[in-house]
């Protein structure tokens, strides 16, 4: 629960800003962009999953809402994705509020189930509402580089934009961590009934966390759309995205500020490496490995890699910073 020290954060931020400068290779820059992108989304997921302890496997829904809203507004009404992003965030928040209100009494796995169900429905809607979403063919986005359409020439620029989103998510998490809301979130995660008995407004806090998490995820969804320039339901509303976000945060450390980023920094390169090594033919194999990693981490290192490393380091005296 103790807030991350500003000094540590500063060092990390500086390091991240320097990172895109270390290479000109498109392949590596792509990895960097993806780390920032998924790190941001994972940080958003962490608000609800890590701090509040509500494990959603439906965040692909918010991701997809963000991606589709801005993309459809761009292709259909020439609205800048920067604005479309805000619309997507709003929609996602509304959606989260409705679903959250319905699921509010559900605890643990039942909440997770309902989030899975909702993503499925959105995916189906996206596929079948062809008039709106273009169905399975998806939506293609214009390639012309222009700041106004959030499209850039070089991957390095994308990296810095992505970094901006990442820093936004981390900043929001940091502010919450140190505020009353942050304390409430953790209290609810730890002992919801006790929290209620001492006046924590559980409904409001959970809904707020859900809405905020949804907003941020949707924003990242827009950025994703503008990066890959083509979105379609099968991938964008896929439960694989939801699972990947959870996996990153669990590996990095649930409820910690930098855990999600660390998880992303571990998973994304692993992902790319496995794909290159195993080849596109065995497209499922890296997911098999994901699944195994997930099971192993959750059974044997559930506080996350960060915490495990800290535990090992505690055998040697180190300046103290307690994990969440």
């Amino acid at each position, binding site marked *: 629960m103790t807030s991350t020290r500003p000094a540590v954060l500063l060092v990390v931020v500086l390091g991240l800003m320097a990172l895109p400068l270390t290479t000109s290779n498109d392949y590596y820059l792509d990895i960097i962009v993806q780390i920032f992108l998924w790190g941001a989304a994972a940080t958003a997921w962490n608000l609800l999953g890590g701090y509040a*302890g509500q*494990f959603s*496997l439906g965040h692909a829904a918010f991701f997809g809402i963000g991606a589709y809203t801005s993309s459809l507004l761009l292709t259909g009404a020439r609205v800048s994705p920067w604005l479309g992003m805000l619309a997507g965030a709003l929609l996602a928040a509304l959606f989260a509020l409705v679903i959250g209100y*319905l*699921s509010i*009494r*559900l*605890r*643990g*796995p*039942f909440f*997770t*189930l*309902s989030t*899975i*169900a*909702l993503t*499925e*429905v959105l995916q*189906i*809607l996206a596929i*079948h509402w062809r008039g709106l979403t273009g169905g399975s063919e998806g939506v293609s986005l214009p390639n012309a580089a222009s700041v106004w359409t959030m499209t850039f020439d070089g991957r390095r620029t994308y990296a810095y934009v992505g970094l901006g989103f990442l820093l936004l998510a981390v900043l929001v998490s940091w502010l919450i961590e140190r505020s009353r809301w942050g304390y409430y979130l953790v209290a609810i995660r730890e002992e919801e009934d006790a929290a209620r008995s001492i006046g924590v407004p559980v409904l409001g806090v959970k809904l707020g966390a859900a809405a905020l998490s949804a907003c941020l995820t949707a924003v990242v969804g827009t950025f994703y759309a503008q990066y890959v320039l083509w979105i379609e339901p099968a991938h964008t509303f896929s*439960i694989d995205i939801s*699972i990947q976000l*959870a996996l990153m945060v*669990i590996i990095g450390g*649930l409820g910690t500020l930098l855990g999600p980023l660390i998880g992303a920094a571990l998973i994304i390169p692993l992902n790319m490496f496995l794909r290159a090594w195993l080849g596109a033919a*065995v*497209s*499922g*194999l890296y*997911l*098999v490995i*994901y*699944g*195994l*990693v*997930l*099971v192993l981490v*959750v*059974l044997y290192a*559930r506080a996350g890699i960060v915490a495990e490393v800290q535990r090992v380091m505690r055998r040697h005296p180190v300046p103290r910073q307690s994990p969440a």
Partner: protein
Amino acid sequence: MIFVELVLAGLMLGGVYALISIGLTLIFGVLRVVNFAHGEMLMLGMFAAYWASTLGGLPPYVTAVAALPLFALFGWLVYRLIVRRTLGMGDVVQIFATVGVGVVLQNAALVLWTGDFRTIRSGYADAVLRVGGIQVSVPLLVAFAVAIGVSGLLFLFLNRTLEGRAVRAVAQDPISALALAIDTDRVYMRTFVLGVCCVGLAGVLLAPSYPIFPAIGLSFGLVSYVVVVLGGLGSMAGALLGGFVIGLIEVLSGYFLGTALKQAIYFLIFVLVLLVRPQGLFGQRGAETMGFGKIA
């Protein structure tokens, strides 16, 4: 006449859904674990039937029996290596351990057998019973009969045998059960294996009637969760009745509204149940919030 056929088809399908869901509700009722890999286990059962038919020429109803030891072994392994370590360990562990298993199973199947749709080509698969102008698919009829039979057997087991009562005792109050010298670990293990066998069996029986591919676990899995929530977590009767209701709704809505919106209907039902009667038809009030259920 069409209506009668639809209702019959709905009931047949409902029986299948019930069979799938019985395993899920049994595991939840006793172990308090939601098996997020349930759909994937069904998928494995379907593939078992496919390979037995394609490689060995075995008809599904033979595979149903022959594969049971395999399912039992599989269930035992999953329990001992994974599920057992999740008991009492909190939400993160319980949810993501089985989610991880599901991911592994689905993608292992993808790697091994590719995403191609496969179907069982056999006379049995296409067999149809004609009664007074109404057509009923034989495989579905068999699945229906088995669903009823299995439910009945489980009911007898849980209520009339000593072992079954031990299971119910553990489901209601594990600590007291321990005090009564009931080996709760063994009960958990056997219940989990039983649940896995049920869903594997369901897969085998379903295989003739559906295309078989790795991702099919996801949609069936989702249905089984809806059935279990509708019927009441931990309730056998609920799984049976819930299955029928969902089966009927699916067939009828498929006919009148088209297949596209079929799945959206599930979600609607899911939401309605949560709003109006969260404990489901037969569940105990609070099961979905506190995670308690009564085996009945």
